[in-house]
C-alpha cells in the first residue's frame, strides 16, 4: 500500500505559496508510462537529438573517455513514454524503439 504523504499545515508552509526549486525530482512520474523507449547502444551515433527534444530531461548523458558527451541511457524514473525521442532519432539510425510497458 502506498505510504500516505505527510501534508504540511498552514503554520508550516511558507507564506505566499513559495516552493523550493527542484522539488519535481522528488516525484517519480515515470509510473505514468504506457510505452517504454528502448535505446539500442550499438546503433546510437550520439547526435543528442533525443536529449534536445526530451521534454522531461529523461535522456541520460555523460562525458566518455575522450570527454565527448554521449548518451548513456534513459531515466525511467521520469520518462513518461511520449515517444518524441524515438520519432526524432534520425531515420537512418532509429536507435530508439517504443515498446509496450509490461505490468
Amino acid at each position, binding site marked *: 500500500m502506498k505510504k500516505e504523504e505527510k*501534508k*504540511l*499545515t*498552514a503554520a508550516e*508552509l*511558507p*507564506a*505566499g*505559496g*513559495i*516552493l*523550493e*526549486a*527542484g*522539488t519535481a525530482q522528488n516525484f517519480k512520474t515515470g509510473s505514468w508510462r504506457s510505452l517504454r523507449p528502448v535505446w539500442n547502444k550499438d546503433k546510437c551515433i550520439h547526435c543528442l537529438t533525443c536529449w534536445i527534444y526530451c521534454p522531461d530531461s529523461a535522456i541520460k548523458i555523460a562525458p566518455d573517455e575522450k570527454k565527448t558527451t554521449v548518451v548513456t541511457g534513459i531515466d525511467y524514473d521520469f520518462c513518461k513514454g511520449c515517444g518524441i525521442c524515438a520519432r526524432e532519432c534520425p531515420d537512418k539510425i532509429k536507435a530508439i524503439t517504443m515498446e509496450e510497458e509490461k505490468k
Partner: protein
Amino acid sequence: MVKAIYPKGKIVAKTGNEVMAEAMRQISPDVVAAYPITPATEIVQIFSQFVADGKVPTEYVAVESEHSAMSATIGASVAGARAMTGTSSQGLALMWEMLYIAAGLRLPIVMAEVNRALSAPINIHGDQSDTMGARDAGWIQIYSENSQESYDNMIQAVKIAEKAKLPTMVTTDGFIISHCMEVVEVYPDEDVKAFVGEYKPERALLDYKKPFTLGAIELQDYYFEHRWQLAEGMRNAKQIVLDVAKEFKNKFGREYGFYEKYKMDDAEVAIVTIGSAAGTTKFVIDELREKGIKAGLIKIRVYRPFPADEIAKDLAKVKAFAVLDRADSCSGNFAPVYLDVVSALFANGINIKSENYVYGLGGREISTEHIAEVYTKLDKIAKNQVAPSKTVEYINVRIK
C-alpha cells in the same frame, strides 16, 4: 486646517494627487508601473516627471493597461523590488484578477488609489464603489479624509505592507481630495526615507543562489491552507497597523489608528463613515452640539483589516447610529460598511438601533443639511419617536 507639527516639516499647498506623488518620490520605490486614469492620472504623471527629471531613481514602466500595470508591479515585487502603482475606478476593475494574485503571493505592493464611480453610466467623479468591490481581494485598505492623511497614509502603507506581507491600497475621494488644493505639512526627504527604511525581502526571484517556484498550482490538498494563511495575515495586520501608527506618531507627531473618533465620549447618536464626508460630518456635529444634540462620528481609516471588536466597543454606548456608505453593493440587502459594522456589533452581543444610508454616488453632493437630517432622525430614533428603517436609505437621489 493643517498646522505644522513636525519641527522640520514644511507647510505647502498641494492637491491630494500632488501630495501622493510627492510621497511616492520620497519613498523612492525601485519600480512603478502604471497606466493613467482620471482622477488618478496626475499621481503617476507627476511621478513620471520626477523620474524624467532625475529626481527619483525609480524604474518607471509605462504599460498598455491597468491589467499590465498590476502584472508588471507583481513581477517587480517577486523579483525583490519595492514596487508601487496608482489607479482608479475602471483601472482598478481591470486589475481585478491580478489584485487577488498580488495578495495570494503575499506581495507588499503599495497602490495610490483615487476613489471614483464605476461604469455604467460612465462617470468620472468620486464614490467608493471601486475599492469597496475590491474589499475581499486580500488587500489592506486605508482611506483618507484629506490630503494630509493621504500623504501620511502613503508613508505608513509601505511599512505596513512590508511587515504584513500584504498589498496595501491608500485611497482618496476622487476630485474632492484628489484635485482639491489643501494645506499639507510635508516632511524632509531624508526623514521619510529613514522612516520607510530599506526593503529587504526574505525571498526574491532575482536571488539566483536561492531559486524557488512561486504561483504553482495547489488543488484540494494545499490551496485552503494558503488561503487561511492570507486571512490570518489580514487578522495579524491589525497589530502591525497600530505599531506603524505609533512609530509614525513618535517620529512625525500625527496620530493615526484604525479609525478616528470625533466627540464620541458622550455621544448619543453617531454616524460611521469613510473618507472626505467625515470632514463635513464634523462640521455638522459642532453645530448640533450647540443645539443640544449629542452627536458623534467614527471615521474609519483602516477598512481592511476591519477593526470589528474595537468599533463595537466604541459604538456600544450610543442610542442610535447610522452608517453612511459611498457605495451600494446592489445586493438587495445593505451596503458594505454597514454590514461590517452590524456584524461586529452582533458578534459582540450588542443590539443598537441603526440605519444605513447610501450617498454621493457618482460624485453627487452631500451637504451639511443632508447629514444634519440623518442626525435629526437618529435623535428621534434614540428617543423612540420613530422606528429605524429596515432597508437601505438613500440621500439626495430623486426616486419619485
